């Protein structure tokens, strides 16, 4: 019964730094809490009603002191803010070579798709030492993807994509929680992240593959929904070719430019008039009612497989 943890496991590349910052904060809190406690206790004993301590020279205003206890906390706060902000920024920008995994959340389960075609529910298998980028969406209410051991949390919203990333550093099994209240079975919307050694992971990937790779499913959907009739490589009369699109900079009809990332492609399929490419007529119908979130991810993965921009370095991270 008394064998219970006081600190969470640290199993990702950022966990140690988050913990370091956490301990710095504990130090700062102990320092200021200590000063206040010591002051309260000391004054209460020394200046209790019947004590004989001298009360001469009591002051009620002291500008230097006021400035001291305003400016010192301000400076310390600025330091903590800077470190926290830098790390937060890093946590938002996945490394270039990150392996992508697609997540669809719904009441009350996590549906995972690997580009290789593997699908999982409430489980996420990942290799150790490889950055994993999650592209996530919800098909109903707001959920939140939370793995305490990785110090990672990101809300998962309906109607848009959010992303996060982590790199697991220790093989093992870790809790996956939904951290944003999502209705009746919120507390049951949990699962596990299984971190495996690289070879084991490859074996798992090969052994548990029930579907074809996402690019193949996407290719099939691309023809099934008739996308190919307008977006072919040969005729670009009605719609632009999608070859080399992903990651490139697209000029829109209203003169603005946008990077063709997952969000842009999703938006273009569901709300084509909203992001019309320069030089094209608004002919494309919406596919909002026809496609499931999983199918959208498969088409995105297919479009990614058509290649990115030729110029190296132009691809930006979302």
């Amino acid at each position: 019964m008394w064998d219970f943890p006081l600190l969470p496991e640290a199993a990702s590349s950022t966990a140690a730094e988050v913990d370091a910052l956490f301990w710095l904060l504990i130090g700062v809190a102990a320092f200021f809490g200590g000063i206040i406690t010591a002051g309260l206790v000391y004054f209460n004993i020394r200046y209790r009603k019947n004590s004989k301590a001298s009360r001469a020279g009591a002051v009620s205003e002291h500008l230097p002191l006021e400035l001291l206890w305003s400016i010192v906390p301000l400076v310390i706060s600025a330091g903590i803010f800077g470190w926290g902000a830098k790390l937060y920024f890093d946590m938002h920008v996945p490394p270039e070579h990150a392996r992508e995994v697609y997540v669809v959340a719904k009441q009350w389960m996590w549906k995972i798709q690997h580009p290789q075609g593997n699908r999982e529910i409430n489980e996420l298998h990942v290799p150790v030492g490889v950055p994993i980028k999650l592209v996530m969406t919800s098909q109903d209410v707001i959920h939140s993807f939370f793995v305490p051991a990785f110090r990672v949390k990101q809300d998962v919203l309906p109607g848009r994509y959010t992303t996060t990333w982590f790199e697991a550093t220790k093989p093992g099994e870790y809790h996956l929680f939904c951290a944003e209240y999502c209705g009746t079975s919120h507390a049951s919307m949990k699962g596990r992240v299984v971190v495996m050694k690289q070879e084991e992971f490859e074996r798992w990937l090969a052994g548990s593959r029930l579907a074809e790779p996402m690019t193949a499913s996407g290719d099939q959907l691309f023809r099934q929904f008739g996308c190919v009739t307008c977006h072919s490589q040969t005729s670009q009369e009605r719609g632009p070719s999608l070859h080399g699109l992903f990651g490139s900079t697209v000029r829109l009809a209203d003169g603005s430019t946008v990077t063709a990332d997952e969000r842009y492609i999703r938006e273009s399929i569901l709300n084509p008039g909203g992001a019309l490419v320069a030089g094209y007529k608004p002919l494309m119908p919406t596919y909002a009612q026809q496609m499931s979130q999983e199918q959208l991810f498969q088409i995105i993965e297919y479009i990614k497989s058509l290649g990115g921009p030729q110029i190296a370095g132009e691809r930006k991270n979302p």
Partner: protein
Amino acid sequence: MKTVNEDALQKNYITAAYGIRSWLLTRDHKRIALLYLISITLFFFVGGFFAVLMRLELMTPQGDLVSAETYNRLFTMHGIAMIFFFLVPSIPAVLGNFLLPMMLGARDLAFPRLNLLSWYLYMVGGAYTLYAMVTGGIDTGWTFYTPYSTGYSTTNVVPVVVGIFILGFSSILTGLNFIVTTHKMRAPGLTWFRLPLFVWSQYATSVIILLATPVLAITLALLGVERIFQVGIFDPALGGDPILFQHMFWFYSHPAVYIMVLPSMGVVSELVTCFARRRIFGYKFMAAAVMAIAVLGFLVWGHHMFVSGQSVYAGMAFSALSFFVAIPSAVKVFNWTATLHKGRIEFRTPVLYAFGFIGLFTIGGLTGLFLATLAVNVHLTDTYFVVAHFHYIMVGGAVMGYLGGIHYWWPKMTGRMYHEGWAKFSALILFVGFNLTFFPQFILGYLGMPRRYYIYPEEFQVLNVLSTAGASILGLGYIIPMIYLLWSLRKPRTAGPNPWNATGLEWLTPSPPPTHNFDKTPIVTEGPYAYEEKSANGE
């Protein structure tokens, strides 16, 4: 300057008239304060009852006491009852109503009828919400996040929202009343920098109430419109934006935290000075700090949304601003502590609550820094760390200050003294019970236990059992004062006009005060907290 006339035959505000009509149609700010005291105490025990059931459920990792549906209603209704119907009105509507006119040397608030209307709005909103709770309840969380609240929850969302919408006008009218009263009804010689800090804190709170509450009203109205008429505002399936709801909700609900805690800070300033027999340290900094908190409090709402999907740069701006708001809070804590220096500290019940406030508010404030730190917030948000943090501020801070104030002004309000021994004992067990309840939750949060879970992995059980054990002590700490305070009403009115030998215009009147408060309008010739001068005169 002394207007006290110890005339035992003089009628006070309680004995001035009898009968239910004389209470329900009263325009006396002191009677309205008592009406509020009774009403909010009722809601406090309703909210407390929900908390007891939650803590009992959480003793075991399995869901053995209540179902998921029930638990979700419990935490939602606990939050709604405690925040909207107890904490937000607590000190302003009870102590502020009773004391603000008296501290200013006025006969009543600027708009006595409006004041009575505020109470009726509170009661209508409260009754409606209670009705909605009894007939099915609501399970959205007190935060009403969309699209769950507008498109998915099958519970009484609209009735509850309507209840809170009505309640909001009660808040707004009280805030308006306090602002006008503070501007226009100060006694001769009572300049702004001679105001007690309690008045400053009520003033700052009223400004927040007046500016923020309309935004809550708009947000809840839009929520109702989307839920009833399927107009797409927040739900992406209808073309809306769920993040917009969060921005609008927190634009009220973050300042609301300061609506709850600033009045307590005002109370603590009164208590510390009185029982240390000292002028407040750094008066102008203390007054400026509450106003700074009121202003900065409007600029930090986005720190509730660091993982919501708002932009990284917005997150950085809100984080920086959140650190700024910590500075005036720190200034206040340091100044209270410095006020004790060279004082003559007498350990009576009210000041024990004040010390409890300072200790618990300090922990609550410092853990706020953890949450303001972006990368750490990512891990901690929506876990028990947040639950512990805001209970330290809102229960450890706001409720401690409220109870300290009730104990300090009880003899003024009722003319009776309570049993000092029992009062000290309950202050002590409240402090112990509170820490045992909520400190383990900081550790649970860092371990990663999400909030709003009625079942949880087994490794979290020991800390949850500790928390539940603490809650049972805490509950006792709230019930004992109920008993001895009510018991004190059986005794004769012997408290006298000024049992604590305190400064402040409210202590110039008999206890309980007559309906018109002052026989003669007092004239103020000095700043607040002139305790050293009082001591020098041998008082």
